[in-house]
C-alpha cells in the first residue's frame, strides 16, 4: 500500500490470521480479535506507520490480506466506514451467531450498520 493510497485517519489495520483465516486487528503491540482493542491511527503519520507494520507482519507470516481501513469512532470503538469492511469486522449479516458480532455484542451494537 503506497502512502498515496492510504485512507484518511482515523484508521485501523485489519487482516486475516494466516493459520486461522480469522479477522484480526492490530493493537499497539501484536494482534487482537477484539475490534474495540484495535489501535486507532489519528494522524497520517500514524496511518503510515500502520502500513509499515502491515508489510512487516505479512513478511513475518502472521497475517494475510492486511489493509488499512478508515473508520468512524462510535462509542469509542472503531467502525469501518465502508460497508464491505464493516461486514468483515462484524461477520456475515445473515448469521449473527457467527463472527465478531457474536463474540463482541456491544461492539456490534455500536458499530453495526
Amino acid at each position, binding site marked *: 500500500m503506497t502512502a498515496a493510497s492510504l485512507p484518511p485517519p482515523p484508521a485501523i489495520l485489519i487482516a486475516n490470521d494466516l493459520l*486461522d483465516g480469522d*479477522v484480526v486487528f492490530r493493537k499497539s503491540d501484536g494482534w487482537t480479535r477484539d475490534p474495540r482493542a484495535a489501535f486507532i491511527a489519528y494522524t497520517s503519520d500514524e496511518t503510515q506507520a500502520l502500513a509499515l507494520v502491515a508489510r512487516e507482519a505479512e513478511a513475518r507470516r502472521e497475517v494475510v490480506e492486511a489493509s488499512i481501513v478508515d473508520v468512524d469512532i462510535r462509542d469509542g470503538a472503531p467502525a469501518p466506514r465502508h*460497508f464491505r469492511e464493516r461486514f468483515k469486522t462484524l461477520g456475515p*449479516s445473515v448469521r449473527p451467531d457467527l463472527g465478531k458480532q457474536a463474540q463482541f455484542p456491544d461492539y456490534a451494537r455500536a458499530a453495526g450498520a
Partner: protein
Amino acid sequence: MYRYDEFDERFVRERVAQFRDQVQRRIDGALTEEEFRPLRLQNGLYLQLHAYMLRIAVPYGVLSSRQLRALATIADRYDRGYGHFTTRQNLQFNWPKLRDAPDILELLADVQMHTIQTSGNCIRNTTADQFAGVAADEIEDPRPVAELIRQWSSLHPEFAFLPRKFKIAVNGATEDRAVLKAHDVAVRIIRHAETGETGYQILAGGGLGRTPMIGKIVVDFAPKGHLLSHLEAVMRVYNAQGRRDNKYKARIKILVHEIGLPEFKARIAAELEAEGPSFRQEEVDELARIATFFARKEYETLAPHSRPYERARAANRDFAQWADTALFAHKADGYAIVTVSLKPIGGPPGDMTSDQMRAFADLADRYSLGELRVSHAQNLVLPHVKKDDLFALWRALGEHGLSTANVGLITDIIACPGLDYCALATARSIPIAQAIAQRFADPARQHDIGPLNIKISGCINACGHHHVGHIGILGLEKSGRESYQITLGGDASWNAAIGELLGPGLTADETPAAIERLVDFYLAHRLSGETFIETVKRLGAGAFKGAFAGVSRHEAA
C-alpha cells in the same frame, strides 16, 4: 456410483500429501503468500472475507449418503456446523482453518472426494443434469460422459494452464436442466434427426460474468467414439488462440464472439483434419466400462400408479402442494424423483446444517438406494423414491425443516454467498433472497404465481446466474451503498436468453417491492395458463418497465 480405480485413489492421496507439505512450508516460511496462493487455490482453498473457504468438488452433482455423512463430520469438526451448496453443484465450507485443511482433505479422500480443479484456470468440475440416469425424458445417461470428461481433463498437461477457468456441462435429456448455454463448452446427447443414432452435439462460447453470452452449437453431431477428439479440437483452438493478454477477454466466449461462429467452426474442422481420424475405440471402451458403474439400479417391479400416494394426496393438502413442486417423472414405474428444497422461507439459499446432512443421508439410505444429487439451483435430489414411500418421506423431511413446497417457484431463489462471505462481492445477495422469500411466503400465492426463477449475484462475476434468471438481481456498489440492478426475461433453459436491464439500481429495501410490482403486472396481464417467462416473452421486457418505473420514481421522490 463411479468408484475410483487404484490410479485415482493413489493420485488423490498423493495430492493430499503434497498439500500437507505445502501448508507446512507456508507455515515455516519457505513459501510466501504469493507462492502459496496458487497452490492453495489448486486445492480449492480460498481466502474470503471472514475466513478461508474450502470448495469441494461434487462430480456432476452425484453424492452417496456415506459422502454426505463425511461432509457433516467435517462441518462439525472443522467448520461451524453447516455447508453451502453452489450453482456449480459443489459444496463450500465457510470457516476452515489453514492448519486443518490437509486433515480435511484426508477425510474427503476416505470417501473418494477431493477439491482438485475447483479453482484456477483449468477445466473445472463437470456439471450435469441432476436427474441424470433416472429422468423419464432422458435419451441417454450423461454421467458416463461427464466422468469421461473428468478423467480426460484431470491434470491434462495441455489444459492445466488455460487462458482462464473453463466450465463444461453435460445433459442427456430432452429438457436442458444443466444450463448448457451458459457454459464455456457443453455436450448435449441427442438422437440424429435422420438416422436416430445417439451422439453428441457440442456447444461453445457460453458464459455469464462481465460479458454474458449464450453458447452456440459448434459441432452439430459427433457420433460415438468421436467425442474427445472433437472436444480436444475445441480446446486446442481456444488454448492457442484465446486471449491471454486481458483477463476479462480470456474466456472462450470472447474468442467465439470475436472471430464469429463460422470461423470458429472452420478452425475446429482444421484442427480435426490435422489430427487425422477422429474415431477412438478407447473412448467407446472406456465409456462402456464407466457405464457399468452407473448401470440401472435394481428397481422393484411396481405398478405405475401408487394407491397410497394418491390417497395421501387427496387427504393432505400440504402434502399435495409439496408433491406438485417436488416430483419429477422417473424412468421406472412406481418410482419418482424428489427434489428437496434447500430454500426454507427466510433461510440462506443452499445452506444445510450438519444435522440436516446426517438426517438426509439416513433418508437417502432408507428411501433412495443411498444416493442423492445436488442441483445447480442449490437444491438436493433423492433420485430413486418409491411412490408408495412419498408420504412417509415428506413427513420425515418436515421433521428436519426440509419439506418447503417451493421447488421452481418464486421463493426457490438462487443466491451466491455475496458480501456476507465472498471477498470479491460488491453487495450482499442472501438478505435480498430472504426478504423476497418472506414477501412471497404465502404458499397459495406462490402456487398461483407458478414457475418463476429469481437469481441473485453479489457481483459482476455472476455466480448466482442472474443474467439467466427470469428476474435477475445484481448487487453492486453505488455511492458507498449497496445497489441492486434488476433484469427481466433471462432464461436458463434450452431457450436461453440474457435478461434485459429494467432501469437504475435500487436500494436493498426497495428491491422486494420492485419484484412484487413485476409479479403483479404479470398476474394482471397473463393469458390463461401462461407462465411468467412466457408472458415476459410475449409482451417484451419493455412492457414491464412501467411497473418498474413506479418504484424508481418512488425512490427519486
